């Protein structure tokens, strides 16, 4: 434990990133989980990864260094628009897009010569390599996105609960869905580099499942999902450091445990 504290300067930045990412993704994941769109976040992460691979490919092709983040954001935003437009039959779009993005990433990646490790880092995460600058970028994007989501939560929730009444009131369910998916895309685009797609998936689904099992008020569920995400992310990171385990998998396993406890608690008879 002493070693952990003495080496704090090495892990504090990735630690903060994992906590911020798990908490904010956990909060936004409540709506995707309620809508039974559990695979939307992982598909957005995968389409983002395709964007990164394309950025690396074009960089090699044109011999100029292109920043991967805008490419990741662009592809994820394209997927967001598709998901928002396809309210019904969304599961098919999620599956097809996930498979297409995965295949595209691997195929385009096979043409890369020098940067394959960077691509793998994006796909599987490399939380321990997060720099101070990346931490500030994640914080600078995730915190405003979380605040905006919290400000819009009631409208997004109403559109998700009953899109027909939302439309009858003169509002656009498509726009509400698009806002939700754009916020998710932005968050995923900046956090996948540290978390990887597996942990992005875990952080959007499992804290939400645990929180939904514990509460019957939307606001409380949101706060609890953020807390479960932060708690799972922080503790998982520390455990991975202490026991020399892969960070993403350790955090994901801990979040699975939280999700399972939540679902078991929900099945227990209430007094």
């Amino acid at each position, binding site marked *: 434990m002493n070693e952990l504290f003495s080496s704090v300067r090495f892990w504090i930045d990735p630690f903060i990133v994992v906590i911020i990412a798990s908490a904010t993704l956990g909060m936004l994941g409540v709506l995707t989980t*309620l809508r039974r769109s559990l695979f939307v976040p992982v598909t957005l992460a995968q389409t983002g990864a395709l964007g990164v691979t394309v950025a690396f490919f074009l960089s090699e092709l044109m011999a100029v260094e292109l920043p991967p983040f805008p490419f990741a954001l662009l592809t994820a935003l394209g997927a967001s628009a598709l998901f928002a437009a396809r309210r019904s039959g969304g599961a098919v779009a999620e599956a097809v897009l996930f498979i297409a993005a995965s295949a595209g990433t691997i195929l385009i990646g096979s043409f890369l010569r020098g940067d394959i490790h960077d691509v793998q880092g994006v796909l599987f995460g490399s939380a321990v390599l997060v720099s101070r600058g990346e931490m500030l970028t994640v914080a600078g994007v995730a915190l405003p996105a979380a605040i905006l989501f919290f400000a819009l939560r009631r409208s997004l929730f109403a559109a998700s*609960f009953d899109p027909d009444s939302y439309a*009858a*009131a003169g509002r656009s369910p498509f726009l509400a869905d698009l806002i939700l998916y754009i916020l998710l895309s932005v968050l995923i685009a900046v956090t996948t580099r540290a978390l990887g797609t597996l942990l992005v998936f875990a952080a959007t689904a499992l804290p939400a499942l645990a929180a939904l099992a514990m509460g019957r008020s939307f606001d409380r569920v949101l706060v609890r999902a953020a807390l479960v995400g932060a708690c799972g992310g922080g503790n998982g990171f520390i455990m991975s450091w202490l026991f020399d385990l892969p960070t993403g998998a350790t955090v994901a396993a801990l979040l699975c445990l939280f999700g399972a406890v939540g679902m078991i608690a929900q099945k227990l008879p209430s007094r």
Partner: protein
Amino acid sequence: MNSEWRALVELRDCGIGWERLLVPPVSLTVSAGEYLLITGQNGAGKTTLVKTMLGMIPALSGEVRYPAGRPLAGYVPQRGAVPEHYPVTARDAVLMGRALLRLMALRWSDEDRAAADRALADLDLAALAERSFGELSGGQKQRVLVARALAMEPQMLVLDEPTVNMDALSARRLLHQLDELRRARGMAVLIVTHDIAPVIAYADRVALLDRDRGLFRVGQTAEIAAELMAGGDA
């Protein structure tokens, strides 16, 4: 119908349907304060008609006009159209009606809370306010969804098959409450149903859609009721 009633929606030779016309082009005016029954067989296009009226789907032809600007419409969907696993109490569900009024609602205002409490009281739901929406009976859920629409303080309340699977007493109670609220608030009430028996006593006018005979008719309740009795259908 009172000639002083203000027109909220005007349909002029409106073609309704998703890709092809369900019935001949529809001309219909809905005015503030009226109780309109929209009826026809299953699949006749009743829901499509109200969705076209509310601008939720485009008219295939003709024109939908809002003479005094788009009216604020509270919509109560068919039973089973809303999910039951969402974490909301009955009060939260009713407050959701206030969230339909604006994109950003960081906190509920006193006005929001008062409107929700009034809607809960109007439908005798105050005692159920803190119960989970998913745990309520079908009839109670339906009343909560009506209260949600009322919390918007709408100019037009549209209910899609509100009495389906409701026992006769509960159905009559709900329809009577709606009639009283319409008079008190001066809002238009549009009820879409294939089961006209419980509603017809309250309706000022009836719009009849008959897809098989390619017919759309709108008229005073007694007139259309006589036609239905003679035809023996709908």
